């Protein structure tokens, strides 16, 4: 079966970008990706936008992005599955290429969040929970993951220190990433002093809302071999769902969508979790990274706390996780996040990650979660 390759990557600076509109952010990432691929704008057959529309005043985002990039009259469309919108965009581009409809497709994840206030964002995000029976009690996004954290602590003895060690690690690597919102190391003591958000979470358990964009350019196997010096292949593409309501989940200590998406991706790529050298996982909250270690099979269910305490997810451990800083340090412009993950893994597999390079990285993985695990996309990427 023919493969789909990534031939170009671009990544803007994440943060409070009061200097730019969402299409201007998209342009930065797109221009970088074109330059990286060494192709012209006319070589793009279509673009797919990953974004969550509720945050923008502009209705129907693909139109304004497509115009500003100057890619009219080529086709464009939007994908939306909450915080996994970026990976969904990559998946539809992959599908279009696999189907033979398009040969070269640009995927742009972009989001401008900071035009809304924090309570407005808390309200919007809380309604990614089920609104009929849950949001009526003022649930928030951190609160949902806090419910998982508390249950995980109860069942497996996971500790506050272990949760916050995820934040310490991700800030450690974020300090080395010029595109990250937070480029400073933090200590466990400092994290423990931060304000409560939704117990047991404090500020340092939570990723930050941000503006930003990232871009990947995908191509058919033939075109990728022709264009790219170091193509990276999307060999495993898993995607799965779980109930909208957390009340209807089998348990609150893992994300069944992540387990299923990982199973599909590993099977398609014919690899296992032990083969993965570097991964970008969806650490919207500290516990989410611990759930990811377990759901992806890097360790057994319940052992995620020990996995970080033993530094198994640092470079030099069993698998390097979020060594770009993760959502925690990079910031989380929701539509851009999935694409940002793929950009980082491509850098790692090309050997271009600089001081945070994982040696011998040949198989990488992304894990992009939408909502509270209602959607999950797992990609297994490989170099030649």
């Amino acid at each position, binding site marked *: 079966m023919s493969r789909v390759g990534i031939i170009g990557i671009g990544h803007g600076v994440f943060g409070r970008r009061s200097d730019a509109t969402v299409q201007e952010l998209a342009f930065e990432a797109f221009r970088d990706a074109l330059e990286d691929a060494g192709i012209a704008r006319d070589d793009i057959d279509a673009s797919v936008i990953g974004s969550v529309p509720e945050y923008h005043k502009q209705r129907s985002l693909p139109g304004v992005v497509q115009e500003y990039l100057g890619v009219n009259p080529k086709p464009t469309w939007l994908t939306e599955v909450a915080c996994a919108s970026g990976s969904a965009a990559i998946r539809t581009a992959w599908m279009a290429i696999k189907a033979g409809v398009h040969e070269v497709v640009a995927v742009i994840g972009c989001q401008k969040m900071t035009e809304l206030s924090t*309570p*407005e964002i808390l309200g919007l995000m809380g309604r990614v929970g089920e609104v*009929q*029976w849950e949001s009526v009690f003022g*649930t928030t996004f951190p609160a949902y993951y806090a419910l998982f954290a508390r249950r995980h602590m109860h069942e497996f003895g996971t500790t506050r220190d272990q949760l916050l060690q995820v934040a310490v690690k991700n800030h450690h690597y974020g300090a080395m990433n010029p595109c990250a919102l937070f480029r400073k190391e933090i200590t466990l003591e400092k994290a423990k002093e931060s304000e409560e958000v939704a117990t047991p979470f404090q500020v340092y358990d939570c990723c930050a809302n941000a503006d930003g964009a990232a871009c990947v350019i995908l191509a058919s196997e033939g075109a990728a071999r022709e264009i790219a010096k170091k193509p990276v292949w999307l060999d495993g593409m898993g995607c799965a769902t779980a109930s909208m309501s957390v*009340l209807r989940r089998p348990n609150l200590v893992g994300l069944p969508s992540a387990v299923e998406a990982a199973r599909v991706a590993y099977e398609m790529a014919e690899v296992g979790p032990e083969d993965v050298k570097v991964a970008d996982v969806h650490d919207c909250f500290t516990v989410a990274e611990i759930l990811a270690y377990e759901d992806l099979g890097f360790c057994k269910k319940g052992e995620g706390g020990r996995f970080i305490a033993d530094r198994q997810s640092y470079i030099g451990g069993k698998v390097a996780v979020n060594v770009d800083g993760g959502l925690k340090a990079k910031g989380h412009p929701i539509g851009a996040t999935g694409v940002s993950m793929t950009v980082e893994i491509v850098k790692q597999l090309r050997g271009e990650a600089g001081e945070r390079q994982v040696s011998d990285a040949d198989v990488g993985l992304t894990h992009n979660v939408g909502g509270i695990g209602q959607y999950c996309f797992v990609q297994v990427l490989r170099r030649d």
Partner: protein
Amino acid sequence: MFKWFGKVNFSPYTKVAGFAQELRDGRLMASRCKACGATSFPPRADCAECLSGDFEFLEISGKATLHTFTKIVAAPTGFEDLAPYTVGVADLAETGRLLAWIGDTIAEDEIQIGMDLQVVPRIFEELEEIKVYYTLEKPGTAWTKTKSSA
């Protein structure tokens, strides 16, 4: 009358709207499929098991145990005046799970996963319009049941 359910209601129209009237009258209802007997909480009109749309309400005891909880300090729009508030997820004795505020009968330092609870129907007394909800309380907490107004 589902607009009655919740301080801020996001879904006023539903096939299980009768739930809110029952709650106002002090009864907590699950749903039961008339075709196959499958029960659900939260109630649902269309059976997840056999796809039948023929359902009835089934009164449940509200006896429950605490599955997990969180104290929300940073509240969303519409709930700032209540913060901080503690939300619990409870496993219901008869069927399903429920999410609600942990009420006044339980002190913060008494909250423990696995503790026994009683779901208690409530009306927001301080609001002019009818707003109903439920809280998680200590077992044995009394509340008023009235005859249906229907």
